[in-house]
């Protein structure tokens, strides 16, 4: 029956990959961990729920939620992070503001939506499919397809398109990129918007699979997505995808062979080992520090 | 026996040979300059001497002991200290504190001494403070003692970096382009200061582009180009050496033809 566990693990793994992509995008450009990413994920889920309860239909709800969540992140960057960059504040300062931002979002959701667990409509259907002795829900197929499409799409965008080139330029040296006429501020905003979009899509997939939504849903998912992005080599998109899948399967096998109680611990033990052995993750390259 | 003996030292970064088969020596009390166009590998040599990089091959003998590929702290302890091309002072610490960090290895007390303020702690702290004040006096830094290193004028920051190197108790000072970005008046002053160090018995290796400083101060000069030693000798010889001129100015139009 291990195949069943692998499939379960794969589903969670792809969700972690999507969240990890969100971290990698922001870290790639600004060398900063967005500690509020888990809260943004929860915010996306609640926005979709809100728009759906206004019976706007699934697709418009998701699009609106992506715009709103992406917009929230862009505004946050333009107002707070931009001033910190202008003031040349140390890295810690930006990190602390994201912690503050996550408190605001999470507790804002609690005020607006109440703290109890709410039902989320199964937007991706509930049919079950049986292949051999492995059973899985149709929505798991959705998760597989959508996340792969998104991951490939983002990688293509980063590595092949003009905006992607600009993003990598800003990542290397934003001042130089500015001199070359690239609008660094605009590129950073696009990066945040993409990071927000990947969080909303992850939220859509997971919330419709488990049909539950609650304000603190982003905390553990955020931490694990984060470990996945570091596992794969933070800042590298395909690294995050691989890291997420490894983490998802490892977690599922832990529940099979050990017990559910160690489910959360496996993410951090894996993270601990990777950081000791290869601090730059599986695919990261060690940077040579120049004197 | 020379104070410092560098024999057949090379350093490769992947395929690129930053420094290949370099030999040179420095005697006690001498001022030796290493000159060469940008990217010739001068600072790499300093990094090899101070243990920041490991040599790919070759030996470095200082004061009779082999020091290549040793840990940075051992080399500082052995008596080599350096300054940096772009100033690396402790900007958020005061002038006197910068110098006292230099004393780090000579203030021999441990964690328990400092917690319980034992006599040993007081002895070494007092010594460090007094010596730091002496060093700062020799620089004429009385009015800057309380200033933060980051707020010092440029010229003074250069001097403070040298003072900090002296504070480590080093015998050999490696000065990496101390006169960079200085106006003639300042570099003149620096010249005096370095000569003063020579009188106090320090041995100095100087990397410098400002030929007026190099020619007046150096006992001997080595010329480095693309990681290789292409010439060495007294300042006058180097000034008229054809290869050196080509290395700096490149071949003139007609010479290149033949």
């Amino acid at each position: 029956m291990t195949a069943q566990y692998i499939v379960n693990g794969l589903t969670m793994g792809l969700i972690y990959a999507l969240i990890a992509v969100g971290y990698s995008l922001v870290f790639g450009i600004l060398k900063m961990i967005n500690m509020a990413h888990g809260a943004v994920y929860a915010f996306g889920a609640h926005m979709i729920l809100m728009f759906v309860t206004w019976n706007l239909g699934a697709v418009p709800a998701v699009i609106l939620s992506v715009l709103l969540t992406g917009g929230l992140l862009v505004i946050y960057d333009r107002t707070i992070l931009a001033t910190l960059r202008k003031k040349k504040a140390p890295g810690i300062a930006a990190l602390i503001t994201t912690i503050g931002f996550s408190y605001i979002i999470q507790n804002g959701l609690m005020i607006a939506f109440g703290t109890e667990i709410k039902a989320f409509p199964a937007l991706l259907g509930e049919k079950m499919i049986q292949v051999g002795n492995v059973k899985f829900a149709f929505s798991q197929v959705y998760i597989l397809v959508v996340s792969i499409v998104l991951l490939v799409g983002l990688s293509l965008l980063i590595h092949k398109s003009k905006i992607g080139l600009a993003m990598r330029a800003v990542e290397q040296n934003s001042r130089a990129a500015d001199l070359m006429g690239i609008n660094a501020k605009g590129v950073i905003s696009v990066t945040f918007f993409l990071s927000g979009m990947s969080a909303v899509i992850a939220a859509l997939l997971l919330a419709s699979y488990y049909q539950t939504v609650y304000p603190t849903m982003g905390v553990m998912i955020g931490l694990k997505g984060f470990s996945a992005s570091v596992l794969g080599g933070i800042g590298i998109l395909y690294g995050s995808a691989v890291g997420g899948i490894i983490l998802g399967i490892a977690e599922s096998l832990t529940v099979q062979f050990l017990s559910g109680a160690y489910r959360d611990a496996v993410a951090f033990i894996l993270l601990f080992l990777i950081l000791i052995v290869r601090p730059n993750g599986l695919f990261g390259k060690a940077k040579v520090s120049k004197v | 026996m020379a104070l410092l003996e560098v024999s057949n030292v090379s350093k490769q970064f992947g395929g690129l040979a930053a420094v290949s088969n370099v030999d040179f020596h420095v005697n006690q009390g001498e001022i030796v300059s290493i000159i060469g166009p940008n990217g010739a590998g001068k600072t790499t040599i300093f990094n090899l001497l101070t243990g920041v990089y490991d040599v790919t091959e070759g030996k470095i003998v200082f004061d009779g002991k082999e020091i290549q590929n040793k840990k940075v702290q051992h080399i500082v302890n052995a008596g080599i200290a350096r300054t940096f091309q772009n100033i690396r002072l402790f900007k958020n610490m005061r002038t006197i504190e910068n110098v006292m960090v230099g004393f780090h290895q000579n203030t021999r007390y441990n964690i328990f001494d400092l917690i319980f303020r034992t006599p040993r702690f007081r002895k070494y702290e007092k010594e460090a403070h007094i010596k730091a004040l002496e060093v700062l006096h020799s620089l004429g830094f009385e009015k800057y003692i309380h200033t933060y290193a980051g707020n010092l004028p440029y010229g003074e920051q250069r001097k403070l970096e040298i003072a900090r190197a002296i504070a480590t108790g080093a015998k050999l000072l490696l000065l990496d382009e101390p006169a960079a970005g200085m106006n003639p008046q300042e570099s003149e002053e620096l010249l005096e200061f370095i000569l003063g160090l020579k009188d106090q018995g320090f041995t100095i290796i100087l990397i410098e582009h400002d030929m007026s400083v190099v020619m007046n101060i150096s006992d001997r000069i080595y010329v480095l180009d693309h990681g290789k030693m292409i010439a060495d000798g007294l300042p006058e010889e180097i000034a008229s050496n054809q290869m050196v001129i080509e290395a700096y100015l490149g071949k003139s139009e007609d010479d290149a033809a033949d």
Partner: protein
Amino acid sequence: MKKWFALLLAVVLACSALAGCGSKETSGDDGDGPIKIAYSGPMTGDNAEYGLLFQNAVELAVKQANDAGGVLGREVEVVEFDDKNSSEEAGSIAEKIVGDEDIVAVFGHFASGVAMTAAQIYQEAGVVLLSASASHVDYSSIGDYIFRNNVTQDVEAYNCLQIAVGSGVKKLGMLKLKTDWGESAENSFMAALEEIEGKSDIELVAVEEFVDGTTDFSSNITKFEEAGCDGIVVFGMYGSLGPFAKQFRQFNTETLLISVGSSYTPELIDLAGDAAEGIMFPGGMNPDSTDPKVKEFVDAYTEYSGGKEPENMSAQTYENVQMVLQAIENVGSADREAIKDELYNMTFEGVTGTISFNEIGDAVKTQVWYVVKDGQFVESEDHKLVLWDDFVASL
């Protein structure tokens, strides 16, 4: 200069903050002025929904008492606190409550761990604590001021086993929430299983644990399928039972699901939808019961709380407040110790039945066998929960 100003501002803020919440020290309850009772529950953080449900129950009971002329001709007043479901907060609040001499009794502190931390302080200072939710086995033994009007863990675990055996389950699985509540539920259940060893052919074949906040039960479900369970008892709140039931029904529609009374709320139906069909519970008050006492309470509560239906533990909270007010009426004074003594020897006709406290402060409660039928909680016609000893004898 700027730094001095910032320092001054911050110190003033801190001092005013501390002075602001220093409560005045007053002497004991001197017979006039309002009778003050305290309610503390999780308004934020986990289980906040229960905190708010209980808050409505306490306020409703007090409002009804005041409308009927108050107690001993004095108005009743509630002082409310948010303990964020954390022991540290509960400790601070307990200190504050015992410091205020006017407060004569305390209700609330949702989780067992939180309640037991505060209970030590109430016991030390001699203030009655009446909980409607703590189910930890040795909660009441903390002291004679500590009461509980709630089914204890072992009674509820025994009833779950009764339902499993009564429904003819042979291979039983258990899904357990990894908290102190889940641990003690498991211990009681294991003890019950040992008691009926040999008398029934039911067998525990799989035990699965899950961390609070888990929504992915796929691996646990696969394990239950491998063990071939025809019945699973779930020790968890509706927030976990709902998703589990929904995911489980995608894999298997026959196996019987049994859970505990606290998952017995309308929200479970929203979360689990038709997957809730056929889930069985040992439960307390049935909100749709035709009993006039229950009907009147349910209507009053729903109207007061703006449409939220009461569940069993809110009903018990409501009873707790009425019992204490009744005790004050019987004794004729709001003295803390007198209330404590009166509670031991009074019996009270509450919404969930007749209540009396045994010598360590636990209310002896009976439960009803419920099953979910097309989205409604219905009392099972063909089965009835009996006292545990009678049940063991009948095997």
